[in-house]
């Protein structure tokens, strides 16, 4: 086990060529005041949703009247590292799912609760709570070969020009990250802290909502809710962000 870990470290050093990691999360592009807002959990508005999620975790729900805790136990141990390795492959659905999809799957199948919309407050709160259990840990996409074709399609989506403005995600977030778009700094687009408290939304919201906003911004047709393309894109981006720290719940302008 130790030998394998050592081997992985050696491999990583070789793979990066020992070069400094130049990737920066959106946190680095924010002013000191907003960075403090995110980093101080006692004043981060996202913490309100994390607390809600914490209450939901222990509350019996659905027709089965079971709580998350009744199966998973203490979230701090059971959920530690989980969001850092999502999206993951779901064998039953035979496709990858994101964390929200996994939580919904648990809720509808095991708690027999009614399905809710993606931006439902209870679902977001559970996502925030589960995500917060990985805060500070490195994003660690699973080395699951079944994810490869989906991740490749996610990368293709990232690089494909779309919409009336005919721009690809890569055009802004790879080619022009750090520069300004109408007074706002363009970040690199690493989904390190979802669900985020976005000042523009005055609320907590999902990665899907953010992508929908970007796609509407270039006048492209956003993905349908629960579309696999959304998960494919997140799969690619989490690989692209591998090693960066989870910041859930992050604060973003």
């Amino acid at each position, binding site marked *: 086990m130790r030998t394998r870990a050592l081997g992985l470290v050696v491999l990583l050093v070789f793979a990066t060529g020992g070069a400094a990691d130049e990737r920066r999360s959106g946190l680095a592009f924010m002013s000191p005041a907003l960075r403090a807002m995110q980093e101080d959990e006692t004043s981060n*508005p996202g913490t*309100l949703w994390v607390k809600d999620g914490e209450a939901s975790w222990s509350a019996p729900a659905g027709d089965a009247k079971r709580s998350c805790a009744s199966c998973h136990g203490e979230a701090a141990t059971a959920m530690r590292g989980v969001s850092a390795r999502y999206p993951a492959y779901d064998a039953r659905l035979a496709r990858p799912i994101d964390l929200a999809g996994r939580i919904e799957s648990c809720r509808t199948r095991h708690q027999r609760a009614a399905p809710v919309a993606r931006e439902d407050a209870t679902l977001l709160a559970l996502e925030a709570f589960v995500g917060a259990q990985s805060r500070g840990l490195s994003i660690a996409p699973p080395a699951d070969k079944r994810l490869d074709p989906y991740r490749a399609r996610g990368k293709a989506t990232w690089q494909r020009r779309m919409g009336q403005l005919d721009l690809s995600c890569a055009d802004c977030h790879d080619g022009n990250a750090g520069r300004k778009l109408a007074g706002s700094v363009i970040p690199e687009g690493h989904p390190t802290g979802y669900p985020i408290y976005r000042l523009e939304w005055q609320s907590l919201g999902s990665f899907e909502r953010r992508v929908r906003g970007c796609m509407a911004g270039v006048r492209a047709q956003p993905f349908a809710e629960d579309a696999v393309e959304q998960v494919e894109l997140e799969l690619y981006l989490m690989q692209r962000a591998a090693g960066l720290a989870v910041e859930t719940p992050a604060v973003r302008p």
Partner: protein
Amino acid sequence: MARTLVTVPKSAKRGDVIEIKTLIAHPMETGFRTGDGGSVLPRNIIRRFTCRYGDEVVFAAQLFPAVSANPLLSFFTVATDSGTLTCTWEGDNGFAQTESVALTVT
């Protein structure tokens, strides 16, 4: 019941000046925004915040629509005796919420 977060130090020495941070989930709807369909979303804000240390009000705030949603109010007080800090938020549409936190002073 809106979700709140009141943060006080776990303990304090008598005479310490301690920081109290409060957050509450509330849209602070200004009354200036229009919703889908073009009609104005009515004002719905928290108008008043008070913090009592025991029986005495040690901090109060009058809030207007210019205060952001999910408002943060952070202030200081002198730790005198062990007791209860009671935070009250009151606002439009009969909104009233109270949270109490114990403070240990040695």
